[in-house]
């Protein structure tokens, strides 16, 4: 039994099932991120944890106590909303103290906690302002302060950074991470931004279509995606997915792919992999960092293969240059060193690190191992 | 709620309809200075007997607003003690069983003898006195500007033709011949007199009281409508919607020769400092010299616990007392509702009117005015208004108007 247990929880609106049987269990101090495109059910699940929406079937428990039918206020949780949901008519101080006030905490006890939290978030100078007078980042801090001051069992974050500009978002992300490390609180965090998911979490639940597609650590999710959706959704630029056929080769099996211009190439899998699937049509997945120029290839890898491919586009991005070719009719992006001398239109050697290759069934889109 | 409704009206009136003990609450629409002064006579009389007066005035539409309010008040079980009413409204309320029986006070004060029978028709229901008449207005008056009459050499017209000739004379002299306000009840007031004059008393009785379809659809009726068309020709173009008192002002200000209006118009003349027979003339509409069409304001008493309260009895008694009758009618322009008074305090027109009223009453020529709801129910009266006013405004020709009159009566009977 974990700190927060979600057991077979479902949610339906009438005949429409928006969340299918979901099982997640996290320990105290974990940072769980629910990530997925909009409409995937992540916010619904968060609201169910918060008690803002009823559970259709199944159970949600915190610290072993079933939360079904328990009011949001009695779950000892705190929530930070996408729009921050600061009470516009109250000052910052009023906003932060409102929850304590509602729980009947006397004023003398509230004051030091407000001061402490304000200090922690560096908003002490804003306490007498109204939300309308604050910048986006300041509002974000106040919203977090409001949650922190409650000292809840679980923090719930509902896309808290999506209303901030890019720079501020990165700063706040770091700050949330620091805060988590400092305070060791249990957090459930909803986002559609996979980078936030990867950077912040101790564990990620990738959701799509009302199902949890995969639950795991960031590394598991990134390196070992359970299906094509997870593979495509996580990582930026996203994983290259292109059709291939598994054929026998000198050292075992190879992926036979169609290059631009009608030629085919064979790229052998790492030692012995995929031998059981020879002759099968598959989708081959390789992240951009596993497709490089020759000198940029991972020196630790035992399975780097060079294939001459025609270059379609080059996209210099400062630290790297992304080079695009076509394989099996799909654009395939490689991450090359910045100073590599490559031009569109010419043919260039691409290094494929097949240790990182993952293989999917084109029909079910599930992983083939 | 459904079933209890009808029973409830009476029951509620019984249980909760009491004003404070020792007070009377009076619903009326007499809010002008003169009328209020007249009512004050009544109020003072009652306060002399230790009875307070709670005033509930609702003016507008010649009492129609007040009647709407009355219906709400009675339905809610909060009926006023006494209510000013006209003609068939009294009968309708008596039918609902909502009015108190005033027979004791009537017997005590001998009302049967002094109140004319034509009035008793409204003041009594089913042999019981239910209302105390305050006054008698007669409606078939002609008001003429004496200065214009003298200037143009017009004598009092005795017949319709003479009247038309007189109107023509005034018109030719560049004045407005007939001052008139285009409101349905004013149109009907004229028609009232015209119909009486055209068809005589029997015709009037048959058509407007008995609602005899032959009389309503007769050629006489068409003739009456034709005469209305003639009169329309003597009215200025700007008559529509004009208040009656503005029409009177036209006569007062030497702009118009005649007005056909009830005796309340006299108050306007008197207020303007005019004297009867010196500045203005009053006489009956030509052809109705021996008839009087009237309407009578009465106060009906709402039933209080199945009997008449002492206050109501006192109020009813005070209303028909000679002092109040004289004092009130002097101001109001009407004549007393009892035939046994010395009216030397009234002005010339008032004295003349009182004599004519007594004479008509004695000879059976006292008729309730249909235009003022004293010949038939409100539904019929208003249905007739529609036809008369539409015809007067040129929407119907006379033949159509006659047909419409018949069908209007059929629908609303």
């Amino acid at each position, binding site marked *: 039994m974990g700190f927060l247990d979600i057991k077979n929880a479902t949610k339906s609106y009438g005949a429409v099932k928006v969340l299918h049987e979901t099982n997640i269990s996290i320990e105290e101090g974990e940072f769980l991120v629910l990530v997925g495109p909009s409409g995937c059910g992540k916010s619904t699940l968060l609201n169910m944890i918060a008690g803002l929406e009823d559970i259709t079937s199944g159970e949600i428990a915190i610290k072993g106590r079933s939360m079904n039918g328990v*009011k949001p206020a009695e779950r000892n949780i705190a929530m930070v909303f996408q729009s921050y949901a600061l009470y516009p008519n109250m000052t910052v101080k009023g906003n932060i103290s409102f929850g304590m006030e509602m729980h009947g905490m006397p004023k003398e006890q509230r004051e030091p906690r407000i001061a402490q939290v304000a200090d922690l978030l560096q908003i002490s100078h804003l306490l007498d302002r109204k939300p309308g007078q604050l910048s986006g980042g300041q509002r974000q801090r106040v919203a977090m302060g409001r949650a922190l001051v409650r000292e809840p069992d679980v923090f719930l974050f509902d896309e808290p950074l999506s209303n901030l500009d890019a720079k501020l978002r990165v700063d706040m992300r770091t700050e949330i991470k620091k805060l988590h490390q400092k305070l060791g609180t249990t957090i459930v965090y909803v986002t559609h931004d996979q980078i936030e998911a990867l950077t912040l979490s101790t564990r990620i639940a990738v959701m799509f279509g009302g199902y949890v597609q995969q639950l795991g650590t960031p590394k598991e999710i990134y390196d070992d995606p359970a299906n094509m959706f997870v593979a495509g959704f996580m990582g930026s630029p996203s994983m290259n997915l292109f059709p291939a056929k598994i054929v026998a080769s000198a050292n075992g099996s190879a992926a036979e792919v169609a290059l631009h211009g009608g030629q085919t190439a064979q790229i052998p899998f790492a030692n012995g992999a995929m031998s059981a699937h020879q002759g099968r049509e598959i989708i081959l997945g390789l992240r951009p960092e596993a497709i490089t120029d020759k000198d940029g290839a991972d020196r630790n890898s035992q399975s780097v293969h060079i294939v001459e491919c025609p270059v379609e586009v080059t996209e210099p991005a400062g630290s790297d240059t992304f080079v695009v070719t076509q394989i099996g009719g799909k654009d395939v992006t490689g991450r090359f060193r910045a100073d590599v001398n490559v031009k569109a239109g010419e043919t260039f050697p691409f290094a494929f690190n097949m240790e990182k290759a993952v293989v999917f069934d084109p029909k079910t889109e599930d992983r083939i191992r | 709620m459904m079933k209890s409704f009808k029973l409830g009206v009476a029951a509620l009136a019984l249980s909760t309809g009491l004003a404070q003990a020792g007070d009377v609450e009076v619903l009326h629409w007499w809010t002008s200075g003169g009328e209020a002064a007249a009512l004050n006579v009544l109020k003072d009389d009652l306060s002399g007997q230790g009875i307070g007066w709670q005033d509930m005035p609702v003016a507008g539409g010649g009492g129609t607003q007040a009647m709407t309010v009355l219906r709400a008040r009675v339905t809610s079980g909060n009926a006023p003690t006494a209510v000013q009413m006209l003609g068939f409204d009294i009968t*309708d309320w008596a039918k609902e069983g909502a009015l108190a029986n005033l027979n004791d006070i009537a017997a005590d004060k001998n009302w049967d003898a002094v109140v004319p029978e034509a009035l008793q028709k409204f003041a009594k229901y089913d042999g019981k006195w239910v209302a105390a008449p305050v006054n008698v207005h007669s409606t078939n008056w002609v008001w003429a500007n004496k200065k214009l009459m003298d200037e143009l050499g017009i004598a009092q017209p005795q017949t319709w033709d003479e009247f038309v000739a007189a109107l023509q004379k005034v018109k030719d002299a560049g004045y407005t011949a007939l001052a008139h306000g*285009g409101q349905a009840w004013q149109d009907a007031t004229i028609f009232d007199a015209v119909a009486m004059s055209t068809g005589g008393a029997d015709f009037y009785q048959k058509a407007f009281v008995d609602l005899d379809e032959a009389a309503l659809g007769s050629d006489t009726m068409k003739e009456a409508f034709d005469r209305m068309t003639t009169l329309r020709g003597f009215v200025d173009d700007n008559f*529509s*919607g004009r208040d009656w008192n503005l029409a009177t002002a036209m006569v007062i200000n030497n702009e118009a020769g005649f007005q056909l209006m009830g005796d309340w118009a006299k108050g306007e003349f008197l207020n303007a400092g005019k004297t009867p027979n010196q500045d203005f003339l009053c006489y009956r509409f030509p052809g109705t010299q021996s008839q009087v069409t009237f309407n009578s304001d009465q106060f009906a008493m709402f039933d209080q616990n199945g009997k008449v309260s002492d206050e109501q009895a006192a109020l009813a008694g005070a209303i028909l007392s000679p002092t109040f009758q004289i004092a009130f009618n002097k101001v109001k322009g009407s004549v007393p509702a009892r035939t046994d008074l010395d009216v030397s305090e009234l002005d010339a027109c008032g004295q003349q009117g009182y004599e004519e009223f007594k004479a008509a009453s004695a000879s059976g020529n006292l008729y309730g005015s249909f235009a003022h709801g004293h010949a038939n129910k409100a539904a019929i*009266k208003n249905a007739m208004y529609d036809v008369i*006013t539409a015809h007067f405004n040129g929407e119907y020709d006379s033949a159509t108007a006659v047909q419409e009159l018949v069908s209007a009566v059929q629908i609303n009977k």
Partner: protein
Amino acid sequence: MSHAATENRPALLDRLREALPKIVLSPTVAIVAIFVYGFIAFTVYLSFTNSRILPTFDLVGWKNYENLFKIRAWDIAVSNLLVFGILYIVICCALGLLLAILLDQRIRAEGFIRTIYLYPMALSFIVTGIAWKWFLDPGIGLEAVVQGWGFENFKFGWIKDRDMAIYTIVIAAVWQTSGFVMAMFLAGLRGIDSEMMKAAQIDGASTFALYRRIVIPQLRPAFMSAFVVLAHMAIKSYDLVIALTGGGPGTATEVPATFMYSYTFTRNQMGIGAASAVIMLMTIAAIIVPYLWSELREKKQ
């Protein structure tokens, strides 16, 4: 409540708390059920009875409806409502929109002018009716004044003309509510995203095209709200007609509201009055229900 008792109560209390929104709404629901729908049902019932001065419960079938349609004044009232309603709503919307656009051009003293446009809504027609009646009266009003200036041929006697009188009612009614409609449109205009306007200007839209193609289509919700308020006022216009023309000249400006009042109260024909009220309610429903339907369905999407 004793402490021991509360032990067993949480479930009950919780249920109570959950029902709280419904409990809060319930007085309103009860009020509306009785005082609106109950009364409508009662009126429908009355329309089948021979009620005269007070409600009675003797059924007479469709007689009141048959009689109603035989009464010429009812025809006039219905067609007047049609003429009046359409003109009133169209002119109010057009004028309100025009004024809102004019006022939206960064006008100095906007607040002052807006108050002037808006104030008629504050006055009851018992009050302004007399002023309008005078103003429209050819003998003493506009016609007399303009003729006094030397324009002897100037004629403005609509209020006395039975074919034109209904239009004078439109004039006065527009006067009363167009300012309110203006405020609604002004609010709508202020709510439109200014970046979109800039984009349209950069796209080369003329001011006219800007309003016709970009602004006005976005005012649809304001149009809808205005329509409901105006339709509601058009149908209920009673004071206005009574104060201005009393339904005249003749019966030329009779409208259903005056008809209904007159038959129910003045003429003691409560049955026919109720029948006319039922017809009127059905007409209202025919206009309002589709509107509500579209509005509420949209909300669900």
